[in-house]
């Protein structure tokens, strides 16, 4: 019977001998030893895994809602539900929320979309290594791709949420500001910050699964100490929320851009931008340093 299959065999199995000159040495301190030029290696690894990251993003997005009827509506439903509750609480006067620059429904929906972009990236990057399981312990590939790819689904969901947002904005007659095209510049630090923290959290979560659980609680609390569903406060001591919380300036900037077409807190925004970038780079370096030591916990 066996001879029947032999036609399917691969013609030859030659090794790619020109590449044999690539030499890798594994020792106990191979990744710690290099100092600044390690960034060359890290960036090369990232560039080499662009295609892998893209594949993993496609995999996550297309597999995510395959076994569901409402499919992509699930990207929208949670934010609409939360906003509905808060609109009810505001109009009934249960929670006093000060006047927002644009109609509250539009303001809250935009705020929560931004917030969910941040928390979505943070949560999925934290869980990315643990979810990959034996892939991490047994297969040699750039693991950093898992974390980068985990941002794909939340970003995709954010784009999906732009549809109901556009509907709400038009129906409430919010004027479109041309400055909104600078939006990517205010969204990028949000994603970088989430990934930077996610790099550290994903490694921590591999060792201690408490991290993933604690993160859920932290993010729920975080929504209330960030001006997501209320305008930024200006009276002491609540004004601290805008400054101490590094997410706030980034969120406020995106909201300002839509409401005023400009920034109200540009200094805080720029420092938050730099802070996010540093967290992102530091997290990335930490990831490269720490993962080989803890991958056995996956």
């Amino acid at each position, binding site marked *: *019977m066996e001879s029947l299959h032999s036609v399917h*065999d691969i013609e*030859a199995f030659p090794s790619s001998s020109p590449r044999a000159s690539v030499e890798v040495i*594994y020792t106990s301190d191979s990744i710690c030893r290099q100092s600044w030029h390690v960034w060359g290696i890290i960036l090369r690894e990232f560039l080499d895994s662009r295609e892998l990251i893209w594949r993993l993003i496609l995999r996550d997005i*297309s597999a995510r809602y395959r076994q569901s009827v409402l499919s992509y509506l699930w990207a929208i439903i949670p934010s609409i539900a939360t906003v509905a509750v808060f609109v009810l609480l505001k109009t009934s006067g249960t929670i006093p929320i000060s006047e927002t620059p644009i109609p509250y429904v539009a303001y809250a929906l935009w705020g929560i979309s931004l917030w969910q972009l941040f928390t979505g990236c943070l949560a999925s990057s934290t869980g990315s290594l643990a979810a990959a399981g034996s892939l991490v312990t047994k297969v040699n590939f750039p693991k950093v791709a898992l974390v980068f790819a985990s941002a794909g689904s939340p970003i995709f969901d954010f784009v999906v949420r732009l549809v109901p947002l556009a509907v709400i904005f038009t129906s409430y007659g919010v004027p479109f500001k041309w400055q909104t095209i600078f939006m990517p510049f205010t969204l990028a630090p949000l994603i970088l910050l989430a990934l930077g923290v996610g790099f550290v959290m994903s490694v921590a979560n591999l060792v201690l699964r408490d991290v993933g659980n604690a993160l859920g609680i932290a993010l729920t609390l975080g929504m209330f100490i960030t001006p997501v569903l209320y305008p930024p406060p200006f009276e002491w001591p609540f004004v601290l929320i805008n400054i101490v919380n590094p997410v706030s300036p980034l969120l406020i900037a995106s909201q300002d851009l839509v409401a005023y077409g400009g920034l109200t807190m540009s200094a805080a925004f720029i420092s938050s931008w730099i802070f996010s970038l540093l967290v992102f780079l530091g997290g990335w370096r930490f990831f490269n340093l720490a993962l080989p030591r*803890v991958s056995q916990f996956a």
Partner: protein
Amino acid sequence: MSTDILVNVEGVSKKFCRSLKRSMFFAAQDVACGIFRVPLVTDRLRKSEFWAIDNVSFEVKRGECLGMIGSNGAGKSTLLKLLNGVIPPDKGRITIRGKVGALIELGAGFHPMLTGRENIYVNGAILGLSKKELDRKFDEIVAFAELDEFIDMPVKFYSSGMHLRLGFAIAAHLRPDILLIDEVLAVGDNSFRAKCTRQIGRSLAGGTAVIFVSHNMNEIVRVCDKVIWIERGRIVQDGDASNAVGAYLLANDREETLRSETAKPELIEGARLRNVEICDVEGNVRSCFRTGESLIVHFDYEKDPEIKELTFSFAMSLGDEKNYVSCHSPWTGFVLRSHNNFGRVTLTIPQLLLNTGLYLLNVGIWNERFKHAYDWRWGFRHIEIRNENDSFTGRFFLPHSWSESAHGNGPGIRPGPDHTLPR
């Protein structure tokens, strides 16, 4: 060092921790040391740590196949992980020249919700193949995995065999310089195994260095040029494949043989064995024989005078508790009819036609019809048999001879269907 050496392992050690809690603490400590550039003390054991790999060195050249054998938990898989670069060694250094392909966790990145087609692209990307390469090899991969009609079915509906075949097919198309294989073939059916073995043979011919872990010794001897035998993280023996496998089998036999315990028959009173002597033809008591030597067994018995008839049994078995040799005295027409209370009965086996192994000896004395045993000793002693010709792959050594026939089938004569051998 010659560039023909693709894998060079020099004094490599790796430690693991028995306690989960403590290992988490140590991991945190190691990471902290890395961040603050504190040199790691990796060559000493901390509390509840042990060496999973201990000072292992070897090298593998282009086109060479190294087999790795050893009992479960000996450290073979850990060593493969070190070679694959998934975990760093604590001591020593591993030099890898070229692209590594690993048939270790086949289909590890498969997403159950996606179809086989989509998973080929995802898994291929994880293993480092580009979309262009995958597009070109797609049909080959599907054909190799024999999944033509199922390729658009979600992978979660695949059987374990289909899962394995798809995983292997993708990994086999990597064209690596170094191929690591960890017992992945054990799950597939025979034809698929044969196909995989052929594939490995081809990659060897193409200059790939192969490192192969298996518990199937026949496979190891057939495929590998040299073998390292690992036990408790250390190399026990390395070198020529057949020698190392022979030594491993002998040691394994010894362990299993001494452990084995079989259901005893019900014993009745009336007679017993006082002594059994294992001798060679000169009468020297021995426990080690060469294939083809004679074996003499003396049974010293004692019995009640009213018992008129006794029969004797002798069997040789291995750790698997199967008797490979049995000699029951009535088969050759021998039934002891004696009025004496004691005496000696001798069994002669003129030629021990058995191959290398550690054999367990089982003896008994029975009533005439083999219904009841008076005395029965399973594994009361063992003997070692050695065949100097290394032909340990079979259990028996049958007398045989080879010669060239004067008249064979000429080229003009078509062999009938009965004579064609499957390839």
